[in-house]
C-alpha cells in the first residue's frame, strides 16, 4: 500500500488549535480556583 501523509499545514490545523483550547480551559480553572471565584 502506498504511503500517504498529510501536509504540514493540515497536521497543524488538525492537531494544534483545539487541544490548545483545552489547555486554556485548564489554565482558567486553576487560576479562578486560586482566586476563589
Amino acid at each position, binding site marked *: 500500500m502506498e504511503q500517504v501523509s*498529510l501536509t504540514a499545514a493540515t497536521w497543524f490545523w488538525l492537531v494544534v488549535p483545539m487541544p490548545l*483550547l483545552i489547555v486554556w480551559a485548564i489554565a482558567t480553572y486553576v487560576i479562578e480556583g486560586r482566586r476563589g471565584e
Partner: protein
Amino acid sequence: MAATYITFVVYLLVLLVIGLWTYRMTSTLSDYVLGGRKLNSWVAALSAQASDMSGWLLLGLPGAAYASGMGMWSIWISIGLATGTMINWQYVAKRLRRYTEIAGDSITLSEYFENRFRDRTHLLRLVSAVFILIFFLFYTASGLVAGGTLFEATFGLDYHTAVIVGGLVIIGYTFLGGFLAVSWTDFIQGTLMFLALIIAPIVAIDYVGGLDGLFSKIAAANPDLLDVAKDVTFADGVWTSTGTLSVVGIISALAWGLGYFGQPHILARFMAIRSDKDVRTSRLISMIWVVITLYGAIIVGFVGIALFGTDQPLQNTETVFIDMVQLIFNPWVAGFLLAAVLSAIMSTIDSQLLVSSSALTEDFYKTFLRRDASQNELVWVGRISVLIIAVIATALAWNEENTVLGLVSYAWAGFGAAFGPAVLFSLFWKRMTWLGALAGMVVGGLTVIFWKGELYEIVPGFIFASIAIVVFSLLTKEPSAEIQEEFERSTRPLES
C-alpha cells in the same frame, strides 16, 4: 436487528422513567423552565453541550466531513465551534448567570432583555419571543428530520412513521418533567454521545488498517480530501476537486463560532447553573467534551470515505455514522451506538421545545393575556405549548428533501445574529439602551433572513446588529442610575 431494537427500547424506557420521576419534582413555572436554578457543574456542562450539538454532531458533521474531507466542513468548522464554546463559557456564562438573577430573577432570555433595560412597552420581550418561535420551529424540524433519517436507515421504517415515533417519545418526557427531565436526560445523552464518539472512531480506524490505511484509502478516492486548504465537492458518488478554499469559505466556517452567544437553549443552561462558582468546573468539562466529540465526528466522516470509497458511495452522506456502525460492530454494540444518535437528536429537540414553550407561556400568555395566572396554570400552559410547537415542527419536517445541515445552519445563524450581539453588549456595555437592543435584534434577525451570498449570513448579521446597537444606543439618552448600578453588581460575584 432484534438486538438493536431491544437496546433502543430499553434506552427509551429509561428516558420515560426520568420524565415521570421529575414530574413529581416540578411544581412552579421556574422549576419547569429552569429547574429552579439547581444544576450542578456536571449536569450543566453536559446538558449545555448535548443540547448544543444536536443530531448535527452524529449526522450532519460526519456527513459533511465525508463529503468534503479535511477542508472547510471538518477542520475549519470544528475550530470555529470549539473556540466559540470556550469564549461563551469564559466570558458569557458567569455574567449571564449573575445578571439574570439580579435583573428580576429572569428565567427566559426575553424576560432578561425586558428586565435588563426596564422595558415597560414589552416590545423587547415580544420581538425576541417571535424570533425564538420562528427559528426554533426550523431547528426542531431539523431534529425531527434527523430522527426520521435514523429510524429509516436503521430499521427500514417508513420516513413519516419514523418522524412520528421519535416525536412522541420526546414530547412525552418534555411534557411531563420540563427542565429537570430535559437536563438529566441530556446528562445521560451527553455521556452516551461522548462514549460513542470515542469508541466508534478508534475501532473504525483500526478496521481500515490504522492511520496509514486510512490516509491511503482516502487518497485513492481523491488526494485533495487530505488537504486542509483544498475544496472538494461530492456528487453522484464522486469526489471532485474545485481548487483551493477561498478566504470567504474559511471565514464562513470559522464564523459558526459566533453563533454561540445567541442560542437560547444553551444560554438557558448558563442561567440555570447552581452558582456562578460552578462555572469554572462546567467550562472545563464542556471543553474536554466538545473537543473530543468534534474530533470523533469528523474522524467518522474520514473513515467513511475509506470504508465505502468509490465502490459503494453513500446515497445520503448524513447516514455515514449509521452505515459505518452497522457494518463494523456487532448488533448489540451497534444498538448502543445508534441510541447515541437518537440521544444527540433528542437532547436538542427537547431543550428547544422547552425554550419555545417558555416563550409562549412566559412572554405571551403571562405578559399579554393573564398577568395573574397561578403557577399551576402556567406549568400546564407550558405543557400544552410543547404539544402545539411539536405538532407544527412535525408538519415542517414532513418533507424528506430537507437536510439536517441546511436547517440547522439557517436557525443557528438566525439566533447568532439576532441575539448574539444583543447578549454580548448587554453584558459588557453599560451605555447600551433599550432602543439599541431592539435595533440590534431586528437588524440581526432580518439580515439573516434576507442575506444572499457565499458568505455565511451570520457574519453580516452579527456585524450589522453590532453597529445598530451602538448607533441606536448613542442616539438615545444614557440608561438610568438604577440600571447602571445593576450593571455594576453583575460584574461582581453573587452574594450567597
